[in-house]
């Protein structure tokens, strides 16, 4: 089973990478892109008997390892 984990900086944390990309897009002439935020994306291949159990395992890994709660939040999608 596959779990997809998205880790993003909390809104209160400044994201210099996103900002830099947004600025370079503007200087390249792109209009209509008002904001860019960059995060991390993980694909976990899990041996789990059910989607629920997969989600539980992925949440455990995400909260303990993949994201640092001081600065980041995460979201999980299964399948």
């Amino acid at each position: 089973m596959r779990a997809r984990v998205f880790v993003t900086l909390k809104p209160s944390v400044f994201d210099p990478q996103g900002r830099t990309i947004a600025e370079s897009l503007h200087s390249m002439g792109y209009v209509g892109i008002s904001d860019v935020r960059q995060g991390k994306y993980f694909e976990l291949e899990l041996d789990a008997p059910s989607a629920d159990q997969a989600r539980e395992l992925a949440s455990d890994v995400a909260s303990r390892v993949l994201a640092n709660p001081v600065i980041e939040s995460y979201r999980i999608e299964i399948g």
Partner: protein
Amino acid sequence: MKFAVIVFPGSNCDHDAYHATKHVLGQDAEFVWHKDTTLKGADVVILPGGFSYGDYLRTGAIAQFSPVMTAVREFAGSGGPILGICNGFQVLCEAKLLPGALLRNKDLKFHCEHVGVRVEQTSTPFTNRASAGQVLKLPIAHGEGNYFADQVTLEQLESSGRVIFRYCDNGGRIADEANPNGSLNGIAGICNDRRNVVGLMPHPERACESALGSEDGLVLFDSVVASLASSGALMA
């Protein structure tokens, strides 16, 4: 007096910390492999700089789970002096031995250069020989040294005098131009509430010999030797 230098896979300033404490300072020093479960009777623990586990995922994120960290936590709990330098600071934050986190430098670039670092507090084992307001010339070498903590934590740090080092210009002024990475309040180093665990992004171990451009880092190591000598006298 014995220094333990913890070696994680990917640590790369371990030899520099060892050289500074053993050869420059003339103290006993030993490497402690991350899979070890004891600190080999050390009096001081250094978590050196580098890229533990490649800094993959997040800086310091994987190293916090190394077996040796149990012993490091115990040592911290018993009041033993611990210095986290650069990646070591990042590991201490990830391990929750220090609050906050280190984000990407604001300009997204790695910075390696000498900077001004002002000593804010002398009441730690690593700064007792410095004077408050003293400006040290220390190298930095990091891509993720931008100190962040939420507002509440930050206020606590400030009000309890736990901001130990701040980036400053040559005259000791704290200014945006002197802040190499965007750290909140120009923070370069902090300590825990018991004040025995200190973490900083600059590299004092690279500034212990005039041939390298600065000897200002020695004061951190001299301090801990002095502080242990006085407490050791009590214990003996």
